[in-house]
Every structure is written in structure tokens, then in C-alpha cells.
């Protein structure tokens, strides 16, 4: 997908239709970067002729995998899985609406990671490990063992854009770790937000009532020149 809508970028369902705030595009780019874009003759070694329907077209519900009572992680180890649950719940906590933990964000991400190229898997694992390492440095404990306040204290500086020093207008050169931490954190936050907002709980959070139609789009009903 591109930044600017091709005709039917306008036909994607909200919330993924706007470029400016399109988290899904960000993820898509992150996940699929590096796959071949132009192909040579090696691709002509075609295999069996496919014919079929996608699972969706066959009406299969893929979401039941995540709610299976016997669910087991396919990619993450126990510590990583627990860390991800805790982290996702700090980033998107339960409030008056359910949060990332209830939306089983960890399970979906585990499934997604299990089919990603090794390079991407490594990036994810490194990011989790980085957060633990920083936590160890500051508190002598892994992230999942911290109290809620300390978790927020650790993550918050990474969760906002950085700016140059007020005094010297220099970038914060003494604290390169902050930038690295930010990169790791942004990857995790983007994945967690996608997994949350694309879940059933997340769609409800965004106001979806489960219906596919509420009549035509009525648009602007203001008098002429009301906006100019």
C-alpha cells in the first residue's frame, strides 16, 4: 500500500483507509520488507496448479485458534510470552473497555511471528530482550516483575517523539540508548496496537457494533459555505 490512496484505498473498511494514521500499513511494510519484488526466471519453476478458494471464501473462522483452551505458543518461550502479555497490558490496559491482554494480543502475535522470516523474528525477540535488559539496569529485575509504576516509568520516555536540547539545540547525544530503546519500543507498540485494534475487542473499542450497514452515507448536511 502507498501513502496516497489509489482509487480503492478509499474502499477499504475504516479504520485502515487513511494513510496518515494507518497503522496497518506500517505493520505490513515492516513485516513484508525484504521479500522479492521483481522476479527472475527461477520463479518459472512453477509447481502444482492452484485453483482454490481462500479460507475466508470457504467460510472458515480462523479466530478460534486463539481461543482454544489448549492453546500453546508456537514461537515464543514462556518468559517472552509472559513479558509480552505484561507489556501489551501496560501499553493498552483494560479501562472501562477491555485491554490487550483480554484481546489475546500475545497469542495473535505469537501466531504471526511463527510464520515470519527469521530476520523479523529476531528483531522482535531482540526488542523484548532490550526492554528486559534496561529494566535490569534500572531496577535489577526483569520487566514483567516490576510494579506498575516502574513499568510506566521505564516505557514512557520511549513513547513520545524526542526533541533536541533546549539549551544547546543538540540532539541528546549522551543518551543514544534512548533512541535505540525507542526503536525497539516502537516496533513492539506498533505490533501490539495492530493486534489489539484488529481483534474483535479492538473493533468494538473503535465503535463497531457488529453490523455491516446502517443505511447510506449522509455526508455534509451543513449549508453552503459553512466550512469556508
Amino acid at each position: 500500500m502507498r501513502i496516497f490512496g489509489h482509487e480503492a484505498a478509499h474502499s477499504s473498511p475504516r479504520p485502515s483507509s487513511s494513510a496518515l494514521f494507518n497503522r496497518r500499513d506500517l505493520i505490513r511494510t515492516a513485516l513484508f520488507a525484504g521479500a522479492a519484488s521483481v522476479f527472475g526466471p527461477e520463479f518459472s519453476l512453477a509447481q502444482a496448479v492452484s485453483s482454490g478458494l481462500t479460507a475466508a471464501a470457504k467460510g472458515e473462522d480462523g479466530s478460534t485458534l486463539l481461543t482454544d483452551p489448549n492453546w500453546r505458543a508456537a514461537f515464543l518461550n514462556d518468559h517472552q510470552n509472559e513479558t509480552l502479555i505484561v507489556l501489551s497490558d501496560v501499553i493498552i490496559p483494560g479501562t472501562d473497555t477491555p485491554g490487550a491482554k483480554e484481546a489475546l494480543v500475545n497469542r495473535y502475535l505469537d501466531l504471526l511471528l511463527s510464520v515470519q522470516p527469521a530476520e523479523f523474528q529476531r528483531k522482535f525477540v531482540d526488542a523484548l530482550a532490550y526492554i528486559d535488559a534496561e529494566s535490569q539496569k534500572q531496577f535489577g529485575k526483569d520487566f514483567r516483575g516490576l510494579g506498575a509504576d516502574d513499568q510506566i516509568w521505564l516505557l514512557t520516555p520511549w513513547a513520545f517523539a524526542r526533541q533536541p536540547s533546549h539549551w544547546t539545540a543538540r540532539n541528546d547525544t549522551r543518551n543514544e540508548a534512548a533512541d535505540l530503546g525507542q526503536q525497539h519500543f516502537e516496533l513492539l507498540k506498533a505490533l501490539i496496537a495492530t493486534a489489539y485494534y484488529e481483534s474483535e475487542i479492538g473493533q468494538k473499542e473503535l465503535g463497531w457494533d457488529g453490523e455491516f450497514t446502517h443505511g447510506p452515507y449522509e455526508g455534509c448536511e451543513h449549508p453552503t459555505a459553512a466550512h469556508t
Partner: protein
Amino acid sequence: MPQDVLQQTYDAIVVGSGATGGWAAKRLSEAGLKVALLEAGRAVTAREFTEHIPSYQLKYRNHSPEIVRTRPIQRQCYACMEYNYEWFVNDLENPYSTPPDRPFTWQRLRVLGGRSLVWGRHSYRLSDVDFKAASRDGYDVDWPFSYPDLAPYYDVVERYVGISGAAERNEMLPDGQYLPPMKMSCGEVRLRESIQKKFGRTLTMGRVAILTQPHNGRAPCHYCGPCERGCMTFSYFSSPFTTVKDAVKTGNCTLITDAIVSHVDMNTGSNKAQGVTFVQRTTKETKQIRGKVVVMCAQALESTRILLNSSTREYPKGLANSSGLLGHYLMDHVVGGGASATFDDMKALPTANPPHRPTGIYLVRFRNTPATGKHPHFIRGYGFQGDSMPVFNFNAPGIGKDYKQAVKTGAYSITLGAFGESLASFDNFCEIDPNLRDAWGIPALRISMAHGKNEAAMMRDAGVTAAEMLEATGAKNIRVTTGVEMPGMAIHEVGTARMGNDPKKSVLNTFCQSHDVSNLLVTDGSGFVSSACQNPTLTMMAITVRACDHLVERFRRNEI
């Protein structure tokens, strides 16, 4: 397939059942001709539509590794998703090559209906500023017909298809036969009024092949949103459920799916096409079918590939290629320039609830028009598509409760993306790659295309003008893009068998008939002389109907 289907000689064989092939089959069979409609892909049914399946019911929620594995090219198309990727060609089975420094993305479907199943449905007329562009700016040649020749066929197509839109009386974008337009948001009305006043430019609601009222037995749109996954109420135009259905209903049209046409068969003695050879998709058996006329509607690059693969002793460089131009003058619109911003003073909350209007706005070309005069840096022009509405702010900073709230508060966004004319150039072409075959053993294409300086200047200008218009409308946080996307990205490829009056300088005549072989027609986008900047499919369909009516006339006069 019953054997007798292949025993008879049809009046016409139509190759491809997409936007243009559906029209050819309908028009010819309704005129009483016996038609065989050959389609490379399988049949589709409404049962496999997925527009009402939420993405959380997909195993990978639209990030399926299967798409990455089998559709490395197709996944560059925003409409190729975990829902519907089986409609798109499997790239492993359908290869093509490009020179390393000239990438081209060829996004296509092989299934009944072709790309009409997933298209964006924007439908605009070309004007005489387009058909006679060469006479105005001296670049290349005019089309062999002018707007009044095509206008009645635009009428026919629009009336049948059902295009919702508004008349604007702008000479760059002739008005047509419209159903009521969809509605504009407050942000869009704001932009429309402001640029009309400050720049004299026209912004209109997208003219789209989506019904806003009942039409020809189809129901109006219910605003669920994701049309590219199908529409169980058939509210947007796709050929299987309209033109192809009508054709089959006449009793004169035999639909043969899973028939991959490899080449046209010639009767060399009479210099006439006598039918086509195809490979049955699943069994890979080779079969032949005979017809008095062959009408190619497999889409620009595929139709040309078939002709290039149909060389004979008389036509060693490809069938109907005495001009040497077959494959050349490949075009696709240039995309990449534009801007987006926010209206920070507009307060409206985004929602994931319908209605989801399945289209956007269109800003009519304003460069190099009779009214605005010559631009110093480029010829021809571009139009913008876009939209403006409240959107969620998933990129909001922060964590916790505040982040959750910021996502929902969102922002009022506005986006404009340009589609520009791609100049016809002999150096942009396709040919057969001698070392590459598809899974059915049919030689595959090598596509060599690059956008040039004119396109680059145009996209830069598009970034500038989009930003100017947004700024003049009071938008904030303006972000600009001025780049040029790789060719193919607009999915509007046209050309490769250009029309013209001079057989030495063109492949087809004004009625899409080969200059060399009188009973061979190519009515899809192959014949385009220039790309203009409007989305091309409406024009392809109108050209197809014009060509078919002319063909029926020739049948009546016993010229076939």
C-alpha cells in the same frame, strides 16, 4: 466440456471475460451472433464473497504468509488480501521478467470477471483535449476518432453499468449519464468550495460504478465498504454478474472457463484468423476452437502476449505486427505525487461503524488545459483522487489510557493522490522472453518500462499543488510526496497495440480491427493511443461496444 462445444464454428470467439470481454460477449450475442467466451480462470459465485467477514476471523488477519509465498508481485496491489488472493494470479505459475533497472508491477486476476471483481470503480470520460492532445502540444499522434464518435457509446455503457456521480460542466471531464452521486464529507465540501473560489478548480464526488439507487435489477450500495472482496448485492459493476450473465442468457453465448488461450490460429491461405488454441487449466490438455472472428479482451499485456505468441511465416514478429509496433507504447498512469494533512479545527469523531462510503473525491485536471494554458515544465496533466474524514490516530504517542483515548479522538484527515498521464513512448514495451514460460508452457512476457522526465515533473507539481490547495483551505500538518512509483502501480496499463489510421504507424484501426488481419480485433486497453489521466476502464468498455457494433454491421453486410 461436451465435445460438441468445440466442434462448431462460432461467429465470434471472445478471449477474456473481464471488463471488456463481458461487454464484447454481451453486445455480440445480443445482436444474434454465436459467441464462445473463453476465460483462463475458473468461474466465481457470490457464495465466495467475503465483504462481510471481519478481519479477526482470518487466521492471520490479512497478514497471511501464503500471499507472500505465492503472490510476491500481486501483494503489491492493495486489493490483494488474505480474503481474496486466490482471485489474483499465482506469481509462481504466471511469471514475467523485467530488466533489473526497469521494474514493472503487473497486477492481475485470472478468474471469471478478471479485474472487474476488484477494481476501484472510478469511471471518467476522456475529452477531445485527450483524443486530440498531440494536435495541441505536438507530442506523438492523435487518436483516430474524436469525442463525438465515442460519446454515444459512453452513454450506452454508463446507462447499463450504473455510474453514480455529478455533472460539473468542466471541459476536461465530460459529463455523462449519472445516478445520484454519493455524498461528500464536511472536509471535502470545504476543499471543494475553497479551491473553486481560490483556484477555479473543480472537485467532484468520485464518479463510480456503484449504484446509489436500484438499477437494472441490482440493489443500491449498502455502504459496507470493502468492495474488492465481492458484493453480495451486486451493487458495484463486475462483469460476471452483469454483462457475462446477460450474454449467457441470450442462449447465443457459450462460456468456457479454465481455457488459457495460447495463440490465435491462422488460415494462412486466406490471411484470416480461424480460431484460437487454448490449454485447459487443470488438465493442461491443448484444444482448439474455431470462429469467424477473434476478439481479444484479455487485457492490454495479455492480448499482446497472445499475438506475439501467434507468429506465422507471414508474421514472423508476431501476428498482425507488420508495423513492428506490437508491444510498444506501453503506458500506465504515473502515481506518487500528492499531499495529506489534517483539519485541526474540525471536530468529528471517527468510528468503525458503517456507513463506509466505498469511494472518494476527484479533483479534475487543471494543468495544460485550454483555459489554464501551457505549463513551463511538462505537457499533459493529472487529476487527484482522495478523501477527507475523521480517522483513528493509531500513531498517537504515549501509552496506557491516554493512548487508547488519543486513538479514538483521532484527527480529521485529508488526502490527495495524483494520477498523471504517462506519455506514449516506443521505448516502453513488452516482448516475449525466450527463456521464460508459464506453468502451462506458454512463453511469457518481458516488460520494459520506465516513467520519464515529464512524469517526474508532473508528480513534483502534484505534490506542490496539493500542498498549496490544502494550505489555502486551512489544513495543518501538511505532508507532501513528489516521487514516482514504479510503472504498473496505477494498475491502468494500456497501449501495446495502438489504434491509428496508418497501418505503418499503428496496429489497429479505429474500430480495433487489425490492419493486417481483418477478422482479428483487440478491444481492451491495448489500442489506447495515449493514456490521458482519467481511469481508463470506462473508455475501454465504450471502445469495445463501438468496435462490436461495427463488427455486427460487417456481419450484416456479409463482409465477414
